[in-house]
């Protein structure tokens, strides 16, 4: 009996032992290295273990055919079914950091892999590396579809164009959002304060910003804290900044020679005697090298319940014009806290103080023009008067007397938010942002008398104070739900309120008496004056814009394999008349992650996603009050009647009249875009590529067109909904990163191909739109249906008249002399005139690109970056700007026509056709720039750890090292001006900066 019980017991035990097995195994990484600390859990239970030093694990009491779940940070979670007690070898694949990256998108965040739209992000590392003043400059060439053009003037922001020129208004660029606060530009932000820049390129991603989104959206997050002990980092560099390239001008003797030649050619008896004049290069008086330096200290850290990041930074970055100073100090702080389980709150602030002495780039323009035959000062120390030869400025004196400009600017960005988890699955977030800004500008103009053309009998003082306050209040309610494990749904609804006010106060006095010194201590409007008069003039102006919006987003995915996103936004803006104030901007997108499908599991493709979306965005960045008639009371038209008019202090009869067009039916400008893209990762995620096709239509584009001169109105142009423009193109982004032993390298390239075309014009401009500057008569561009916007339009040069006989035998050109440019008689009527104008080139670059490479070998690292554009043309209006006595460019000196047969392309020194726009002034705008080279060395970690230091890296850096281009002007980057894009009216060189720096982390 007992023996039978034993038998049963043993059988039972054996049975139990047979079913409840032990499973052993080893966990390895993708390079066959053992992974330590991998969690191995039986699915559905809390039974588990952790892999040991050799990657081995043992689990006992496991049933056959159980599912074991292996999870490890940085690796993709894997599930494997047991097979009896056979030992298992489990290889885990690193998770694609790229795909898991959480990106900030409009009013929320999402993982990159769940996106259906075209979003690019640029990491802090890439931005922090560069020694640029404005973080936007750091983006140049880094992102497909984003074309950045430097505008030259110090402190000015570069122009950003996303996916071609669709929006034409000068002020329209992308919408910048810094830590959820809308700002107008990011020039006050130091590159070191930035954690990440995300660019929303297409309608589907940007549509949620509705009214401001037509130019794309650039989201910036500043550095935030983390759940770790405090890390301190200190970054600093010092460098030399110098002008990259200036246009070489004639020397004194060369000028005299060409002047005399010119006078002979036009039959004027005046001559200059070379013995009377010397030679001077006025760039030396206007441009200068400067030292630039930056220091940045930041501390971040936190705990599970609160995270903080604090930073202080300083930058000195003087401009290239003498006397220009720029000094910026900023303080930033961010705090994110968890209050209990359901409430999170935080605030962030960036406070910037900029002190500068802005100098105008106008002096570089004049240095390019003034005659080089006089020294700035005569032998006895007076400023030279150039009027005997040229009714123009002594530019060295002009800059010297204009240097007393002082600017103090304060900018604060403040944001606070509260996020509450309401009933199950609902989260409410409210965020309030304030952006007060003040710029105080003082300019003292001394009196001087250099010539009858250059004199100021009384000194003068200008003071200007501009203040603005932008307030934004956003509220969102989000519902997140996972249905049946695999369906993930997220619905967000929100409202946004925006109010922007600014005002500017200006006062001007003249005749200050005997200032003890010229510095900010004495420059007050109440200082004693010669005539004891108070306030020669003052002005006051301001504006308020209000907008109110409703928005929402729905995201759905099934197993992160089928993705769907839809957004909507309704905007109401004060910039449009009552009947057109409201606009609706929807978008919808879908994605399919093919590599999550079973049929793709066997391929070598690591990741493949197809996505497509469509959306509509708006542009409300236009001047206010375009739609209302305005009364001008400008003093320029006031006058004094009667005998008192000659006393200098008679009673002024003030005026009031209307001098501006207004457009009472102004409508929203909307951009409607379709985008389709592929994201693909190959070769174990070492090669990633993104290809996007986009087609954007800007409908009812708002921009000014030249008003009809006979209307007598609006010399600044007639604003209205004037055209529909299409931009379509392809973007390619490729990235290869790999590691060979100790050598890691990363290569990236992006190329954008964009085609721009005007598809229709408003009835009021049905025949096409001519572009010209108000203060310079020639027409430069002509935009018409079927052509790119702003295409150059002028006479075609076909050679140079060699002699009088040739002039007589050619189509009639009024007033032509030998040496003049010869133009094509395009319409064959025997006369050269405005009717012979043809299209001369496209200022919109069809291709723009960037390459960069970074390498790391043991303690050394290096980065190289290139960017450029190709296929576009530039109209060199700076060369054209010749009324009479201006200096000659060296290219004219070397190549000019000066007798029969001496030139068939360059005209004579007479430059008689200087103000006729022709193909002679249209140049190839392509360029390739070596934008950045940096080489760094990091001291070994074990050496540093002795001092408690985590990282110490030294580097040398070169910025804008060289630009390869055929363009003869100062810089092939021509910031566009609406329909006058590509017409270069600026003479300001780019700056090259060579610096050394260090990064220190504790």
């Amino acid at each position, binding site marked *: 009996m007992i023996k039978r019980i034993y038998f049963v017991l043993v059988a039972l035990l054996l049975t139990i032992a047979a079913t409840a097995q032990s499973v052993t195994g080893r966990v390895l990484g993708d390079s066959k290295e053992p992974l330590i600390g991998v969690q191995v859990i039986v699915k559905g239970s809390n039974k588990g273990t952790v892999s040991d030093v050799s990657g081995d694990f043992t689990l006992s009491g496991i049933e056959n055919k159980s599912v074991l779940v292996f999870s490890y940070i940085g690796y993709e979670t894997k599930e494997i079914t047991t097979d009896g007690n056979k030992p298992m070898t489990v290889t885990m694949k690193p998770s694609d950091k790229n795909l898991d990256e959480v990106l900030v998108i409009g009013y929320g965040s999402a993982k990159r892999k769940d996106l259906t739209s075209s979003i690019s992000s640029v990491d802090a590392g890439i931005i922090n590396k560069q020694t640029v003043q404005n973080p936007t400059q750091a983006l140049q060439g880094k992102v497909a579809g984003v074309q950045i053009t430097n505008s030259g003037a110090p402190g000015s922001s570069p122009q950003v164009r996303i996916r071609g020129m669709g929006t034409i208004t000068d002020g329209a660029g992308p919408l910048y959002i810094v830590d959820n606060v809308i700002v107008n530009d990011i020039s006050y932000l130091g590159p070191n304060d930035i954690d990440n820049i995300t660019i929303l390129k297409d309608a589907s991603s940007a549509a949620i910003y509705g009214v401001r989104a037509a130019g794309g959206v650039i989201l910036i997050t500043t550095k935030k804290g983390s759940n770790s002990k405090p890390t301190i980092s200190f970054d600093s560099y010092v460098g030399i900044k110098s002008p990259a390239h200036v246009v070489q001008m004639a020397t004194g003797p060369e000028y005299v020679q060409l002047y005399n030649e010119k*006078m002979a050619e*036009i039959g*004027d008896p005046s001559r200059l005697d070379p013995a009377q004049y010397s030679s001077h290069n006025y760039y030396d008086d206007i441009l200068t090298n400067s030292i630039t330096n930056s220091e940045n200290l930041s501390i971040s850290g936190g705990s599970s319940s609160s995270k903080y990041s604090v930073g202080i930074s300083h930058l000195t970055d003087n401009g290239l014009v003498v006397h220009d100073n720029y000094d910026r100090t900023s303080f930033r702080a961010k705090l994110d806290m968890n209050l209990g389980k359901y409430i999170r709150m935080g605030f962030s602030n960036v406070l910037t103080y900029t002190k500068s002495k802005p100098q105008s780039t106008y002096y570089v323009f004049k240095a390019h023009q003034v005659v080089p035959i006089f020294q700035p000062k005569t032998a006895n120390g007076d400023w030279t008067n150039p*009027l*005997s*030869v040229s*009714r123009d400025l002594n530019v060295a004196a002009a800059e010297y007397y204009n240097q007393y400009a002082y600017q103090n600017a304060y900018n604060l960005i403040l944001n606070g938010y509260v996020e*509450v988890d*309401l009933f199950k699955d609902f989260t409410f977030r409210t965020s309030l942002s304030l952006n007060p800004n003040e710029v105080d500008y003082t300019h003292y103009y001394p009196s001087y008398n250099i010539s009858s053309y250059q004199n*100021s009998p009384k000194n003068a003082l200008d003071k200007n104070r501009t203040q603005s306050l932008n307030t934004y209040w956003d*509220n969102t309610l989000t519902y997140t739900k996972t249905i049946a494990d695999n369906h993930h749904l997220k619905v967000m609804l929100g*409202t946004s*309120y925006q109010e922007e006010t600014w005002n500017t106060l200006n006062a001007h006095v003249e005749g200050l008496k005997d200032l003890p010194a010229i510095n900010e201590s004495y420059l007050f409007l109440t200082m004693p004056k010669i005539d004891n*008069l108070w*306030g*020669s*003039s003052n002005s*006051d*102006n301001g*504006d308020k814009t*209000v907008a109110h919006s409703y928005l929402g987003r729905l995201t759905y995915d099934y197993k992160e394999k089928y993705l769907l996103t839809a957004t909507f936004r309704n905007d109401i803006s004060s910039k449009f008349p009552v009947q057109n*104030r409201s606009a609706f901007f929807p978008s919808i997108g879908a994605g399919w992650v093919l590599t999550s499908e079973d049929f793709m599991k066997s391929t070598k493709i690591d990741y493949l996603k197809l996505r497509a979306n469509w959306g509509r965005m708006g542009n409300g960045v236009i001047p*206010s*009050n375009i739609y*209302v008639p*305005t*009364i001008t*009371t*400008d*003093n*320029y*038209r*006031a*006058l*004094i*009647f*009667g005998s008192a*008019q000659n006393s*200098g202090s008679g*009673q002024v*009869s003030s*005026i*009031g*009249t209307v*001098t501006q067009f207004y457009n009472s039916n102004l409508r929203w400008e909307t951009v409607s875009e379709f985008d389709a893209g592929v994201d693909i990762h190959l070769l174990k995620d070492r090669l990633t590529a993104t290809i996007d096709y986009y087609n954007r239509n800007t409908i009812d584009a708002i921009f000014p067109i030249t008003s*009809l*001169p*006979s*209307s*007598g*109105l609006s010399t600044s142009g007639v604003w209205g909904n004037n055209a529909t423009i299409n931009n379509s193109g392809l973007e390619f982004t490729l990235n290869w990163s790999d590691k060979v032993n100790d050598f890691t390298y990363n290569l990236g390239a992006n190329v954008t191909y964009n085609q721009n075309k005007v598809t229709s014009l408003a009835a009021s401009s049905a*025949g*096409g739109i*001519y572009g010209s500057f108000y203060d310079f*008569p020639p*027409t430069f561009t002509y935009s018409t249906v079927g052509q790119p916007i702003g295409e150059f339009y002028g006479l075609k040069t076909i050679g140079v008249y060699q002699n009088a006989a040739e002039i007589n035998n050619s189509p009639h050109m009024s*007033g032509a002399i030998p040496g003049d440019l010869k133009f094509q008689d395009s319409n064959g009527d025997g006369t050269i005139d*405005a009717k012979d104008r043809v299209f001369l080139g496209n200022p919109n670059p069809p291709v723009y690109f960037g390459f960069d490479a970074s390498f790391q070998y043991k303690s050394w690292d290096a980065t190289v970056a290139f960017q450029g554009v190709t296929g576009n043309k530039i109209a060199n209006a700076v060369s054209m700007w010749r009324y*009479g*006595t201006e200096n000659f460019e060296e290219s004219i000196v070397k190549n000019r026509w000066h007798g029969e047969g001496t030139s068939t392309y360059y005209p004579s020194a007479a430059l008689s056709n200087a103000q006729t726009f022709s193909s002679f002034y249209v140049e190839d705008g392509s360029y390739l720039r070596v934008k950045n080279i940096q080489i760094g060395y990091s001291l070994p970690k074990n050496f540093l750890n002795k001092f408690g230091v985590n990282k110490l890296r030294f580097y040398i850096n070169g910025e804008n090292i060289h630009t390869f281009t055929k363009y003869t002007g100062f810089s092939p980057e021509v910031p566009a001006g609406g329909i006058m894009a590509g017409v270069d009216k600026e003479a300001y060189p780019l700056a090259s900066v060579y610096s050394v720096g260090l990064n220190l982390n504790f």
Partner: protein
Amino acid sequence: MKRNFIYIAIFSLIGLFTSCKDIFNYDPYNQVPPTQFWTSQSDAEKAVFACYGTIVDWPFNDPATFNLASIASGDTKKGGTASDQPNVNQFSNFTFSSTHNHISENYNARYFLINMCNQAITNIPKITMDETAKKELIGEAKFIRAWAYFDLVKTFGEVIVYDGLPADGNYNISKSSLADIYKLIESDLQYATANCRVEPWSAEWKGRITSYGAKAYLAKVEMYEACGANFTEDHSAINDRKWADVKALTDDVISHGPYKLFTEKGDSSFFYLFRIPYENSDESIFEAQCGTSATVGGIARSSYAQYQWATNLNGWAFNAPSDQLINDWEARIATDNDVLRYQQSIIWQGQTLPDGDVIGAATQNGTSAFGDVNATGLARSRFSLKAYESRNDDKHNGGWQAFCEQNYKLYRFAEVLLIDAEAEFMLGNKQEAINSINLVRDRVKETPLTVSNISLQKIWDERRFELAFENDRFFDLIRTGQAATLLGTSGFTAPKNYFYPLPQQAIDVSQGILKQNKYWE
């Protein structure tokens, strides 16, 4: 419990905020709302003053005006530094084209002025104010509009006409015929004659338009119409105007109007007529009211005087008397004793001004483009003395500009007398003609004309030398049919050069509606 409280607070906040529709109810910043302007007499005055003030602006006294009116006639030359705006020389030899910047500047400025007149003419009638004052202000605006259109029709021939602001807002219309343009000018001047005040303005408002002023100007307009045969396509008078119509107007103004020649300063009267203390005298009918203010910056900064003045005295020496004018004038000294007026119209390098300043020529280097210190005869620098403002009168409120107080005369009584002389002569009334022309000649001590030696040529010549540098000569040559003969060697061709081409920019922007002058296509 705590959470419910939070929910309530949050939702009520949302509710509150979303019901704020009146956040959009605020007035546009820093604008006088148009509903608050055009409501009172003061607004009406402001609108009319804007018209007067615009005439002071650069384009009405810089190369945009004197190139076309004076340099083209050969009586003045560009002057100034040789290479300063050399394209001005194109008016001396008729090599300019429709893209010349001064042609577009001239055109744009006059239309700018016409817009301001139209703003007043269209909007003032709606204002509730004293009817007499209302009509008078509209009369002033119409006078200035007529003056602008007269300038345009003399310069360009057929141009676009706007009688008030276009009701449909469409400015892009085709140009009108000469007859229609002159009709509008006449109707404007007749309205001004009927509604502006008959008695002269008080001292503080001297310079504003009067009824007799409009009537006097109408005489000049009708004179041009009567001469239409010399420059129109159909070779006949415009609107059938006759010299008798002209005479009727001039007789009325001469007999009943308040105007008389300025003779207070005896032999030097002609010189003092143009000086600052005697601006807006009884001889002046219409002047540009230039004068600055120390307390109100930016007003009335005219370039008239500085553009034409001597370089050593802070001027730029443009529009200088030509050799031809000098020669013809010096010949006239012998034939007509026109010596006083010659001396009081032109000043030479080396001469001294009443304030003690000496007219210079060269600068540091002697071989410069201003002139040679050692020059003699016609090689010497010379300037229009009519532009002279003494530096003692310069109030220095014009910033870097100088001489902003100097008015320029746009129409004066001396010309009315000469128009009367011409009209009387054309009607065969030689004695009446002599009566008028000799008043002008007596002032400057020229030998009086007699019934036997008066001729049309003599009357035309009197105009030339009385009104030198007053922007009349070129148009007078066209009107009288002398242009082809006198300017043929300079490149003038008839009928092409009767009018200037419409600016190319205006043609381009109109996209085919505005057609270019057919001789300039």
